[in-house]
């Protein structure tokens, strides 16, 4: 997928989101006008309006450029990192969904698991899985690091800040 196609899809999604906010979310979840000051819906409408207007404008610009068959700027045709060496901070590029899922899923599972099996076990298991996903196949190193990190943060939270660790306590 070229960058221009992807940007157009993103703009269309923003347009859809903005319309949903304006027609449903803002009217349904904003208090009624109290009779003085600005309406509570005013600022949300203004901010969503800016998003909607700018996205529509960008779609129009892209459409006009394509219609007139003008060669588009290079950055609009391909990903910058495909064209030249990045400086290490150019982060625009292809979305790697597999990679994203491989990190996000263990994190979400940790949030769920911590409520059932407690901080200690959930954190230990999470750190082992995370290191495996990252590519660490040294099991001894993985286990030792998981134990140390879990214990250090437990001590910092429990005794350093006096904050209860999340989830049930089995130990």
């Amino acid at each position, binding site marked *: 997928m070229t960058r221009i196609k992807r940007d157009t899809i993103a703009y269309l999604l923003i347009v859809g989101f903005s319309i949903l906010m304006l027609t449903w979310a803002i009217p349904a979840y904003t208090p009624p006008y109290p009779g003085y000051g600005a309406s509570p819906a005013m600022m949300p409408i203004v*901010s969503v309006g800016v998003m909607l207007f700018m996205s529509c404008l960008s779609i129009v610009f892209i459409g006009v450029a394509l219609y007139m068959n*003008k060669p588009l700027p290079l950055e609009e045709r391909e990903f910058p990192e495909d064209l030249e060496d990045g400086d290490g901070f150019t982060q*625009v590029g292809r979305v790697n969904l597999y990679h994203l899922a491989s990190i996000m899923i263990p994190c979400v599972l940790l949030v769920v698991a911590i409520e059932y099996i407690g901080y200690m076990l959930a*954190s230990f298991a999470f750190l082992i899985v995370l290191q495996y996903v*990252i590519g660490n196949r040294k099991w001894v190193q993985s286990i030792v690091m998981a134990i140390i990190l879990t214990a250090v943060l437990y001590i910092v939270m429990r005794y350093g800040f006096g904050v209860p660790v*999340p989830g049930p306590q089995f130990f």
Partner: protein
Amino acid sequence: MEMIIAGLLDSISPASLIFLFGGVAVGVLVGAIPGINGPMAIALFIPVTYYMTPLTAIGFLVGLNKGAFFGGAVSAVLLRTPGTPEAAATTWDGYPLTQQGKGEKALRMALYSSVAGDFISTVVLILIAAPLAAVALFMGPAEIFALISVSLTIIAGIGTTSLSRGLVAAGFGILLGLIGTEPVTALPRLTFDVYQLGSGLSLIPVAIGLLAFSEILLQLERLSLKGDGEHAANVFSSKLEDRMVTFKEFFSNIKTLIRGSMIGIGVGAMPGLGAPVASFMSYDQAMKRSKNKEEFGKGSLEGIGASESANSAVVASSLIPLFVLGIPGNLAAAMLMGAFMIHGMQPGPLLFKENAQLMYGIYGSLMLASLFLLVIGRFGMRYFCKAVDIPAMILYPIVVFTCIMGSYLGQSSMFDVGVMLVFGFIGYFMRKFDYSYVAFLIGFILAPEWERALQQVVIISEYDTFMFFHRPVAVVLMALTFFVIARTFWVSINAGRKIRLEAASTAAGQHKSD
């Protein structure tokens, strides 16, 4: 005078000194690690400051930021991989010196230049912030509303590659910043009946997700695609002249350092530009005015001095708009604004009136942080150099787990951890699709203040549509907002036209040669 003395005494209390010293040391350490920068470190450490006094907390975070700015130079010099974006210009002369076996000399020059830039900038901040704040006190809600509008537009327009995407990001940030209790009716707004959203989205999980977690997602992606980075060479030569920066060498570059500091101060005081701009601008000016132009890019101490003095000067000067107007000019200042708010203070001109002792304490801490940076950098250089070699497989799980537990720590709430993950996900896509997370975050932080100002304008003016026209400063600022929008559009349209013309002429040339 009593306030000044009391504030300065507060800044030299044992707790303040310990945390300030720790902040600078941790800052240099995290700055040296490629991929971790100052704002990200502040986001990760803000939850810890919940348990500190306001002065200790702000001192710790300011120290962290100052340390991270110098730390960025360590990996720039040793690996040719800048630890922070603003250190990119330092690589051009720092790495060639490392290749010549003079890595320590390059690092020392970077340190002394950083300290010089930081010190000059701190002095300027101390001299001008309070008088400017006294003037800013005359500003009413109309001016504040207009000022926030122009700041957001500048940040969305100048700090990004596309004004439209910048404004979309700022609009999204404002929308999410409005979630919670509506100020006039005191009723929930856009909470979708989720009771945890009643008090709005907390800044800490949003900032950790957007700045730290999404960055780590990208770093891990890069790691999986390209593997672990290079390792630092041994840069500590046994020859004294390859290690030391002599007085003569330092003072021969003093003009460059002062010019760099002034550029850094100017850029830092402007919203949206940021330290990388200061650093590149200063390097460019130094090269143009230097007697030894040919040495630039081959290991010039002057080049390192220009880049480092400018980027370090941004740290203190970016606090000028924050202290004077309550508007953060860059990400680090936005995070510091969050820290002020967590401790029950609203940054702005009233700070000098209501918390004068604290402000003088912060000034004291800022000055001491420069001194600590010199001491820590000078004596800990060898140890910080080892930080660039921490294996990614050990570092990233620690950072990910710290993101998760740091989000929990703020309010002891797993809901906040969920918020952090959601914003990490959003941040990943914002970076990939080139939507400015800086504009988003500053919009998110300023949204309540912006709305409050608008409500005050509407109520005070009794619905006078032309209220803004009675306030000349507000009119000028609103006109500036529209000017920035129009100019940015004009510049981008012209740039597009130029590229199209170049592409067309290249295609025509190729056709002819065929």
